[in-house]
C-alpha cells in the first residue's frame, strides 16, 4: 500500500542562540563573564505581556516558581508525560487558538527554575506567503522540554509562556526579552582570531554597540528612547566656546536593508522634507525577517541623523556619566560619544564629545 507522510518538524536540543547569547559566548571566551543587557519587555506574573514585538524570532526568559506537575518520582525517571500550553495572541489579545504538544518526559520541572521559550519562524521558501509556521520550544534550566508549531501568524506576535496551564502549576516572574533577542544561527571564532572578530562578524549590519562599564561588565546596547540624565546650562560650560557642528552629508532619509531572504525599507518623510530624498541600500545576510530589516533600516536612518550633529563641551567632570547617556545642553538633547578627563587635584575637567539625539 502507499504510505503518505507530511509536515515534518525537526528540532535539536541545542540552546536557542540569540544575538545576546552569542555575544556572551564571545566575551566569556575572553574571560569577560558579566554582560549587561537591556530588555525589550520585562514583567512579572503568569501572563504579563501584550506588547507586539518588532521581531518575529525571539526568546522569552524568566523564572518559574510553583509546584511541578509531579512531586514524586521513582529513581528511574521514565514513562511519565507532561505538556505545556503556549498561547498565540494578536495585539488585541488571544485569538483563541491553543495548541498542545508533546514534551520530553524524562525529567520533572524543578519548582524553582529558569525557563526560556524560543519562537522561531520556519522559513522554507523566499515566498513570504509560505512563511506561515512558527516554532515554539521550551527549555527549562537549559534542557529542551518540547517543541511545537503554530500554523499561522496573526499580525504581530505577543506570545508568552503561560505556566499556569495543564500539568504545570505555578507562575512566571522576572520575565524578559532582551533587546538582542533575534537569533544568531551560529557564532564562530576563526583560528588566530580574537573573540571580538567573531562578535563583530555577528553584529555586522546590526546597530548594536558595546563598551566595558565601570565595574568591568560589558554593556551591550541598541540606540533607543531614553531619559536625559543631566542638564547643562551655558553657564556650566567652562570653555570659552561651545562648538556645535552639523554635517548634512551623512544624513540618509530612505534606507533599504536586504536580509537573507527578504528586505524592507524605512523612510523618514520629515527628514526627507528637510534634507531631500537620500536613498541608500545595505546588504545584511544575517537578517532573516522583514521586521528585522525594517527595524535595522530605521536604526540606520536615525543614527545617520544623530551623527550629523556633533558637539563638544568642557565641564566639571560628573563621574557618574557614561557613554550613550542622553544629556541636555542649552536645551538641546545629545548622546555622549565619550569623554576625556584631565585631573589636576582638586580639579577634574572633562571634555565631552556629543552627537545628536535621534529619538522623540
Amino acid at each position: 500500500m502507499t504510505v503518505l507522510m507530511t509536515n515534518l518538524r525537526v528540532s535539536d536540543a541545542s540552546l536557542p542562540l540569540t544575538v545576546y547569547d552569542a555575544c556572551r559566548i564571545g566575551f566569556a571566551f575572553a574571560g569577560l563573564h558579566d554582560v549587561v543587557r537591556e530588555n525589550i519587555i520585562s514583567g512579572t506574573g503568569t501572563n504579563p505581556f501584550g506588547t507586539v514585538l518588532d521581531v518575529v524570532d525571539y526568546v522569552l526568559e524568566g523564572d518559574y516558581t510553583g509546584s511541578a506537575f509531579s512531586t514524586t518520582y521513582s529513581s528511574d525517571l521514565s514513562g511519565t508525560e507532561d505538556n505545556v500550553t503556549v498561547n498565540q495572541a494578536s495585539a488585541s489579545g488571544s485569538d483563541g487558538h491553543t495548541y498542545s504538544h508533546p514534551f520530553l518526559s524524562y525529567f520533572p520541572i524543578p519548582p524553582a527554575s529558569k525557563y526560556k521559550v524560543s519562537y522561531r519562524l520556519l522559513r522554507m521558501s523566499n515566498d513570504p506567503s509560505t512563511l506561515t509556521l512558527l516554532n515554539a520550544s521550551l527549555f527549562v534550566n537549559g534542557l529542551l522540554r518540547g517543541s511545537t508549531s503554530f500554523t499561522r501568524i496573526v499580525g504581530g506576535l505577543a506570545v508568552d509562556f503561560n505556566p499556569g496551564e495543564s500539568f504545570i502549576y505555578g507562575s512566571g516572574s522576572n520575565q524578559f526579552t532582551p533587546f538582542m533577542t533575534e537569533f544568531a544561527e551560529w557564532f564562530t571564532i576563526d583560528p588566530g582570531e580574537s573573540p571580538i572578530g567573531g562578535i563583530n562578524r555577528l553584529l555586522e549590519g546590526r546597530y548594536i554597540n558595546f563598551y566595558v562599564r565601570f565595574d568591568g561588565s560589558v554593556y551591550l546596547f541598541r540606540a533607543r528612547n531614553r531619559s536625559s540624565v543631566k542638564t547643562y546650562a551655558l553657564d556650566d560650560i567652562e570653555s570659552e566656546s561651545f562648538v556645535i557642528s552639523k554635517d548634512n552629508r551623512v544624513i540618509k532619509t530612505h534606507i533599504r536593508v536586504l536580509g537573507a531572504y527578504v528586505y524592507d525599507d524605512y523612510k523618514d518623510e520629515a527628514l526627507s522634507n528637510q534634507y531631500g530624498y537620500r536613498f541608500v541600500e545595505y546588504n545584511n545576510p544575517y537578517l532573516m525577517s522583514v521586521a528585522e530589516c525594517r527595524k535595522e533600516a530605521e536604526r540606520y536612518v536615525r543614527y545617520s541623523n544623530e551623527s550629523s550633529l556633533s558637539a563638544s563641551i568642557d565641564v566639571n567632570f560628573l563621574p557618574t556619566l557614561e557613554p550613550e547617556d542622553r544629556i541636555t545642553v542649552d536645551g538641546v538633547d545629545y548622546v555622549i560619544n565619550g569623554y576625556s578627563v584631565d585631573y589636576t587635584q582638586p580639579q577634574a575637567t572633562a571634555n565631552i564629545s556629543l552627537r545628536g539625539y535621534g529619538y522623540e
Partner: protein
Amino acid sequence: MITQAESGLSVGDYNDLVSGNYPYKYKVLARKWNIGTPTELRTNSFGPTEGGKTKLFSAYYNGSTWGFAIGAPAGSFRVNTAIPPHVIWDSANSVFQRLYVDTSTGALKYANRAAGSNLSISALADAGTYNFPSGNQQTLYTDNESYTPSGPAYTSTPAIAGGWTLADLFNPANPNPTSFYRGNSFSPATAVVQTTFSSAVSNCYKVKITSRDWTGLSGTKYSSRMIRNFDIETTTDAVNWVTALQVRKETNWGPKESRYYDIPLGNYRGVRLKIKNTNGSANIEIGKVQFVTRTSTTVNSVEYLAGTSWDYVFYAYRDFSKNSWNLRYLRRTGSMGSTFTDYNTGIYFQRPILSMDGCYNSTANEHVLAINMVETGSVVYKAEGAKAVPYVSQKSSTYTIKFSPQASGNPLVPSWLNPVDIVNPASSYKNREGVGINFINGMYMLTLRSYDANEYNLGTTVVSADNGTSQVFYSGYTSYKLYTSKDGVFWSNGYKIPTVYIGNLGVTPSIGWGAKPFLVGNEIQAHFHANFVDNKGYNSIIGFKFASSVMTGTYLTPTDITDEILEYSVDKSEFFSSSITLDNTSGAFTNHAVINDSSVAYLEHYHGIQRGPGDDVYILIGKTLVESISKIKSLDSSLVSITSRDLLALATDYTISEDAYYANSQRVFYDNYSDVTDSGYGGLAHTAKHKGALTAENGFLQSPDNVQCIAFSTFATDFRDFLVENWTYSHQGDKYGFIFKALDPKNYFFFEIEDIATANTVTCKLYYKRKNSYTLLNTWASVSLSDTQYRRYYSCFAGRFLFMTGTDFVLPGSDIRSFDLIPINSSSFYPDIGSIGFEITNVNVSEDTYTDENGVPATLPPGQVM
C-alpha cells in the same frame, strides 16, 4: 549613568558626589593581574606501601586543613576506569570522609578522619559500606589472540601436494608472520589447509588471518597472492567439519595485515581454510592463521565518582550490555552507609566518559558535573596498507551539566550539555584529559590536562633526579589549562597555565586525574598525585599554586599609587584608557611588586570628592590593565609613565583562539513536501532519496505500493538529541518507520511501525542496521494506534528514544513508548550522532536485498586517533 544603587554609596554620599559642591579627588589602586608561574607543592606524606605508583588520588580542603586520599592500584579495573576516591568534608562531624569503590565487591566505602590527618586506603579502616544496586558487576570479555591459550599440541594436515609446509602457518611459537606458506603451483581448484589440536580451544569466536611480511618485496604481487575467496571450517571432534563462514572478494591486503572473521562461539579442535582458486595467482601465501578466544572477567561498572558535597556523590555507571554510561548519584539522607539513596539522573551517554569531577555552588544551589568524554565524529578513513579503512573518529570533549534540586527528597533535574572545550575529532595532535572543577570566588574554575603537542614535540625522555628513573613526557605543548565561567554555561578559552616544574622532572607529570583547583587563603592551589616515586621511595602528592591575582579572583591588599601620581588623565569612549605619570624619585617603582615591566598590573580608578579632612567619598569609574611602562630618567627627576586600557582589551588583543570555535543555535526545520518551484522536483528539495521511487505530490511524501523506500532528510547530518514530528497516513499491512543516527544508508537505527491487521493496533520494532543487516533490538506488540492518530513523535534524548502518537490538538497520551539506547549485548560501539530519515519497507527487513560490495565493513572500530 552609574546609578546610586550601582555606586554602592549611600543616597547622601551619592548626592554629594554629583552635586559639584566639593573639591575633586581621585584614587588609583594597583593589583597584580596575571597568575604568573605556579609554584611547586610537594608532600612526602605517604609511605611506599600505600598504593604503589597509583594514579588514584583525591583531595579536599575544608578552609583550613587538607584531606587526602590515595586509592588502590588500577589493576583491578579496566584501563582508564580506575575510580579515584573522593574526599569530602563532613562539616557536621568535623571529619573528612573518604569515598571509594571497593574493587572486590563493587561497594562504595567510606572512612573518616579528623582534620589535619591524611587519608589512605591502607592506613584507615573502613567506617561503612554502601552497596551499589545489584547488577553493577559486569562481565567483560577480553580478546586473546593466542593460538592455543591452554597449549594443546597441534597437528597439521597438508591437504595438497607441492611441498607446502603448514607448520609455520599455525605455529603459535612463531608469532611473527614473516614465515609463510607457499605453493609453487596451485592445484586443484579448491585447496584445503587445516590443523587440529589435541584438546579443544575454548571460547573461540573469531579467526584471525594475517598476511606475510613482504616488506621490501613487490607489494602488489604478494598482495594478490593472499587468499581472496575461502571458507572457514571448524571442528569440535577433529573428524567432522562444519562451515563457519564464507568469505568472498577479500582484496587489497597489506603486508602483515590482520583481518578478523567472526565464527560462532564454541570450543574447537581445529580450523581449516578451504581456498578457492579464484584470485588468479598460481601461488597462495598466508602469514598466519589464529583462533581468537575470549576470556571473561568480572569488573566493576561504577567507573567514576564525583562527590559534589557531603550529601551528594555522583557516579558514572557503565552498562556493558548496552554500551551506555548512566549518570547516577547517591544522596545521603542520614548518616553514612545504609541511608544513601540511589538516584538515576535519567542521562545515558553512548560515548565513553574519560574523566569526571563535580562541585556544588551554594549560591545558585546547583551541583555541577564536569565531564570529559569521547567526542565521536563522523566516519573518517585511514590508510591501512593499501586499503582505506573507515573509523568513527574520536577525540575528547568537555562539558558541564548543572543539576538543580527539586523539592526535598526528589531527584535533581539536569540541564543539558554546556560545552567547555571541544577538540575537533579530526585533529591528530590535540586531546584533553583529567578534568577538575570547583566553585571559587563566585566563579567556576575548571582545569584540564591538555595535549597540544605535535609529532615533533612528543616523547621527550626526562630522567628523574629523585630516583634516576626515566619517564617520557609530552613536553612543549602539554600543560594544564584553566577555564572559567560565572554560570557554568558560558566558558572562557583555556588559559594555558605556565609549565609547572616539579623538581627537575620538567613538566606537568603524566597523571590520570585532574588537578582540582582549591581556594587556599588568597591562593589557588591544585593538587594531584604523581605517577612516580621520589628519591625516598615515597609517593608524593604534588601540585602547584598560583600567587594571588585578579585573574583568578584572589585579591591581595591593593597598592595605592595615588600619592606618586604627577599627571593623570582618563579617556572614555569605546575604551576606558588612562595615562599616568608616576614620581619615581624615591625608587619605589624601580622594582615594584605590582607596577613593573615584567608583569601585568591591574588598576582601579576612583573618582571622588573631599568633604572635609579625612572625609572622602569615591566612586569606581573604571578598571584597566597596564599596557605600557616607560621609565624616564634625568639628572633631577625619575619618572615612570604607564598607559592602561580597560578589560575589553582581553577580547580584542589578549585572547586569540588557537582553533576554530563554533557554536550553533537550536536548529529548527520544517518540510511539507510542497513543490514551491513548480518543477515537479521541488517537493523533495530537503529529502534525499536513497532507494525506491519516493515522490512528493500534493504536500505528501509518497511511496509506491509495496516497494521498499529509504530517504534521508538533508537539513542536517549530525543529530544527536532531537525531537521530530510528522504526520503519517498508513493502511493495515503497511510497514514504515523512522531512521535516526544514520552514518550512511547502511548503518542506522530504524524504528519500524507495522500496521497489522488488527484494527487500531500496531507492532513497533527497533532495529539497528549495520552493513545492511538489521538486528532487532526490541519489539512492542499491540501498541494502540487508531486511524485518526496520524501524528508521530520521535525523540532521542540523553541516550533514550521515545515514540508517541496523537491526533490533532489532542495530547499524545497513552501511546508513549520509551526505551533506552542501546539495549543489546554487544562489545561494539554504535554511532550516537547522524542523520534522520524515513524507511518504508512494506517487506520484511530481512528481505532487504540491497548490497554494495564496496561498502562499509562489518565493524566500525571506535576510538582510532587519526
